[in-house]
């Protein structure tokens, strides 16, 4: 029988395949690689979004969570807009984009400007700090928006600490459930490209407008080949 070394599998995936074995356990090098990646991810959770360095001007608002620890322990506060910030928002209607730090600011910091560009629409943008996805409902409702797109930092993993998600909610208002949203995740270099993410977002938005709803009622059955369109 011909035996092929397992490391040939590494060409096909960024997952930790073909690590070898020490008995039934991980070899030392693979074990320490993991520890290093975990340390980087832990540090990324505590990274902060710097609105001044995003490369575009937008109003900055905060949730009711006062700091990172409170944000982690009290997601309810991360979903609520500070009263003084609500008063500062103007009623724009239309689609609103909320650029939010979420659980890791690194990816939003580096990708927000380019991803907004890829979306290619002239939608008003708000930057939100210590924000959960549902904070977008509160913001967009205050702005009288028909839909909100929340561009938010995703929970950092070991391989990627720069993933961004896009959450679409039609007719946003406080109290919308997660089943009423559509999510496009893993947007990052090496993950879903900005062009693919933008194409899908527009496709979902057209569907939501036609249906008058987003979420599980709006089936994502966009044909795969359309994703390659510019």
């Amino acid at each position, binding site marked *: 029988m011909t035996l092929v070394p397992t490391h040939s599998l590494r060409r096909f995936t960024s*997952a930790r395949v073909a*690590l070898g074995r020490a*008995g039934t356990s991980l070899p030392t090098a693979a074990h320490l690689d993991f520890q290093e990646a975990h340390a980087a991810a832990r540090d990324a959770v505590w990274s902060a979004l710097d609105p001044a360095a995003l490369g575009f001007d937008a109003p900055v608002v905060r949730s009711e969570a006062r700091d990172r620890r409170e944000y982690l*322990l009290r997601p309810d506060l991360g979903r609520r807009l500070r009263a003084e910030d609500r008063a500062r928002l103007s009623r724009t209607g239309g689609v609103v984009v909320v650029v939010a730090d979420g659980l890791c600011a690194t990816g939003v910091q580096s990708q927000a400007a380019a991803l907004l560009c890829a979306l290619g629409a002239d939608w008003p943008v708000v930057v939100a700090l210590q924000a959960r996805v549902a904070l977008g409902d509160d913001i967009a409702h205050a702005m009288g928006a028909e839909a909100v797109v929340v561009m938010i930092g995703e929970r950092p993993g070991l391989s990627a600490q720069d993933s961004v998600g896009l959450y679409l909610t039609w007719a946003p208002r406080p109290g919308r459930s997660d089943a009423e949203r559509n999510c496009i*995740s893993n947007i990052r270099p090496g993950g879903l490209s900005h062009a693919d993410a933008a194409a899908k977002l527009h496709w979902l938005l057209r569907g939501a407008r036609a249906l008058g709803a987003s979420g599980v009622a709006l089936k994502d*059955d966009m044909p795969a080949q359309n994703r390659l369109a510019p």
Partner: protein
Amino acid sequence: MAFRQSVAGTQYVFEDLRTLLARATPFRSGDALAGVAAQSGAERVAAQRALADLPLKHFLHEAVIPYEADDVTRLIMDGHDPNAFAPIAHLTVGGFRDWLLAAPPEALPPIRRGITPEMAAAVSKIMRLSDLVTVAAKCRVVTRFRNTIGLPGTLSIRLQPNDPTDDARGVAAAVLDGLLLGAGDAVIGVNPATDNVTQVMTLLTMLDEVRTRFDIPTQSCVLCHVTTALLAMERGAPTDLVFQSIGGTQGVNESFGVTMALLAEAQSAALALQRGTVGQNVMYFETGQGSALSANAHHGVDQQTLEARAYAVARAFDPLLVNSVVGFIGPEYLFDGKQIARAGLEDHFCGKLLGLPMGVDVCYTNHAEADQDDMDALLINLAVAGVTYIMGVPGADDVMLAYQSTSFHDGLTARALLGKTPAPEFAAWLERMGIGEGARIPERMAPALIGLS
């Protein structure tokens, strides 16, 4: 009805059953977030003492969420079997704990349908980890589709080959890596990056091709929403198991976009395909403490009691597999390794006691205060407790879901430490294919055979 208990000269009053259960729960951040946790250690012990004195019969008369308001409560109450309950009907919660610890294994299956989820949750709250392990180790639940899961002396593994972009070759490479390390007998189950029907069908077709090419006695699943699975089945995708996340209240299930009727429809559709060869358990459910609070549908009930109620939903559909994704939800519900470990053992205990083929995703996220050491401790406890299956993720790092679960290596280690084997049909297949040390790929498993060249 209110409950009173004195501890160290202070009298504590608990206004109803759901309050008593919540205050008796070992501390976790999610109950504090919901505002239902005990305010002190003394209050918690007072609640535990009052709970221990409560007759099990009381649970048949007081629901934690009103019958009229919640279809999970209706499922629990209407499905209670008084004959199965008879052997334990005279016991208090404390007496039930003693009874369970002393019972021979064969005494447990006959009472399953007499135990409500709230009774299981209640008794777990006055148990230590070793009690949870001891009783769970006596529970045996066997299910079948293309192999036999849950036999004594076995530990199965879900091969979880997720890819950030659902790239078929990336998934296939992780599948092959896992198979070579003995994983995949519970299911080869991919979480899709998006809920796109076309994408889901592509993955289902690919997984089915790998399975048939290598003639693997196992089942595959793409863990999409149940409505997407229904569409995929309608369009002819090769679907073995139907997956769905579920919770312990009508409200949380609505937030997941599911109803009992929808789950029943999906089960019928999967059964109609008749793809199982040794059995017809076609459902796969995931659960996890905190989901109801996350969906603002918890009714002031503690998260562990609600988790046990999710198992009532699961057992109505004869699943092949059920697992709690215990550490996935995050630190606002389970703050650290200690809270995750206890919750994992509670979930496994309650699921097994209620008769489910219970696995656990031994896992954590990077914003929780936990690390690999915490997971090792939980994994070994669960393996001793006879957990039905665990996850197998390449190097413990899920590159799509961005969390850490157990690796293929962890599965091998747990099996080796405790002398466990995979499901028998799968163990025979591993032998037949010449899969051994895992450093090299046998010819009949050549990557080119599944499009990797």
